Each structure stands twice: as C-alpha cells, then as structure tokens.
C-alpha cells in the first residue's frame, strides 16, 4: 500500500469537517467538526513525518493536541455561558446580531 493514502484520508476528513462547520447549526457539533479538521491536519503531519523521516511533524501534532485542549476549554466555557443565558432569559434561538 502507498503511504500517501493516509493523506487522502486526512484530506477527506478535513473536507467533511469543513462542510460540517458550515452546515450544522448546533454550536457544539460545529466545534466537534473543527476538532475533526484539527485531527485531519494531525494525521497529515504524522504521515508527512513518516514520509520525510523527521520527527518534527509528530511534535507539531503533539502541540496541536495541547493547543486544541486549551481551545476546547475556552470554547466549551463560552458555549455553556451562552446556553445558560439563553435558557434563563428565554431568548429566541434566532440570532440577535443582524445578518
């Protein structure tokens, strides 16, 4: 098998994630799609690390995981805040900001 096949998987996952960000409406699902995109990029890094024979790609993927973890904390905190405000204030789900 060709090692580059991993790249196709990565590209497919990335595209799926990107489409998901656009078409899904639930903020948490959108965020999960972003995570999928990050994972796709990580797969590309790991594959390229193997193709190029250097460990740097793996390190980058490692950093991505750490950064993504921070991002998840912040993102979920924001989402929970909004959720609580909306529930209590019983505001319509319609966007407040103009289109």
């Amino acid at each position: 098998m060709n090692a580059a096949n991993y790249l196709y998987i990565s590209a497919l996952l990335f595209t799926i994630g990107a489409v998901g960000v656009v078409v899904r409406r639930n903020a948490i699902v959108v965020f999960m799609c972003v995570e999928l995109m990050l994972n796709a990029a990580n797969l590309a890094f790991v594959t390229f690390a193997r193709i190029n024979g250097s460990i740097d790609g793996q390190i980058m993927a490692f950093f991505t995981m750490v950064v993504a973890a921070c991002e998840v904390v912040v993102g979920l905190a924001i989402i929970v805040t909004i959720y609580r405000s909306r529930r209590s204030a019983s505001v319509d789900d319609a966007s407040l900001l103009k289109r």
Partner: protein
Amino acid sequence: MIDLAISVGQTGTPEAVMFWILGPMAVLSALAMLLVKKAVHSAILLAWVMIILAIFYIAQDAVFLGIVQVVVYTGAVMMLFLFILMLVGVDSSDSLTETIPGLRPIAITAALGFGGLMVSLISRATIGREMVGLTVANLDGNVQSIAKKLFSTYVWPFEVVSALLITAALGAMVLAHHQRTILRPTQREQAINRFRSGSLASAAGLPGPGVFARHNAVDVPALLPDGSAAPSSISATLKARGDVIDSRKFELGEVDTSVEEEK
C-alpha cells in the same frame, strides 16, 4: 488498489490490510457524524474516528502520539464534550447560533474546490523523494526522540504553551466562577429558618426518592409520613422534563399521591 500515481514508498501488507479496513471506517464515521441528528451520536462517532486515527499514528511509528491521542483527545477532550452535552441537554439538536451568514455557498464551493485539488494531487503529485521512514529518527525510541527535540529545539513554544494553558484556565474561571454576591446562608441559619418558618412539618429532613413509596427509582417521588408525595424529593430537572412517574401507580390504597408542581 488501482495505481495511485504517487510513489512515496510502499508499506507492508499488514498495514495495508489495517488501512483498508480502518480507513473507510474513519471516513464513514466522519460522514455519519455529519449526518446524524443528535449531538451525542456525533460526539461518539467523533471519538471513534479519533481512536482510528490513534491506530493510524501507531502504525506510522508515532507510538507516543497514538497513546496521547487516546488519552488526551479521546479520553479527555471528547469526554469533556460529552460532559458539556449532558449539561446542556442530551437531546439538544437545536441551533445555539446562526452559523456564518453567506458562508454556506462559499464553503460548499470551497469543499468542491478542495475535492478538485485532491484529484489533481492524486493524479499528478509526486513528492520528489522516497519515503524515508522513521527508523532512523526513532532509533532511541519514539518518546525519547520526541522529548529530545521538544526540550531542546522546541523548548520556546513548549514554554509558551504553558501561558496558553493558564489563559484557558483563567478564561474558564472568568466565565464560570460565581463570586458570591449574596452570602449563602450557613447550615445553622438554614436550620433556624426551617424552624421559624411556620409549620414544623418541614423541620425534619426531607426523604430521599422512593422513601415510603412502593418504588425506589429516582423519578418516583417520596411519600411524606401523611402519605402525600414530597415534591422536593425529585430533581428539578426531571420535573422540568416531565419525567416524573406518578407514585400512585405503585400505590395499593386510595391515597392521593400526585405530585404538585412547585411552580
């Protein structure tokens, strides 16, 4: 497999078998994640994709990353997602926000364009050099060689990431931490209040769910000594969702045990 023109190096047969089983599975799971309605299902499918990726990492000589992927990503991050989903409401599939106005056509076009790029990649791309493999780089062991670079070449970003972690913690604190603006009554004050506020019926501690009832499930209210249902023995969430079961179902006599809504 039909000849994909890239030649970046061939892998062994076991890996190929693994790839052709797991690869499609990952893509299908991702697609399903996109298509399923409930957020929880999406989350579980995503976790599954991540586990497959972890296997891919290990297959590609990134043992450490594979483990971290399972532990950190699948284990921690996805669990956090699930946790928040539970908090927000499992069946919340409604939208919390408008996604970017006007971006949908752009993104779909972009996705198609990306597909086109991939085709050209498949048909024309050659990396221009053979696959090197990580045998040399991992000579000291994968973890060791990562550590070596992480703590020498990449020590600066590594240190900076710590600031990022603090930011995240601080941010979560800002958004979630309630500084007490109203002093919470102490236990003693609560006890005094209980006794002073009229009827002594509430003076004693409230029964837990199922007490005196014919059933001990959480969604069946407890019965007070007088046989009436104790509204406070049921979680408010259950009540709000209308999941409370009337204890009368399990009652033998004619005592009215229907639950009064508190509100």
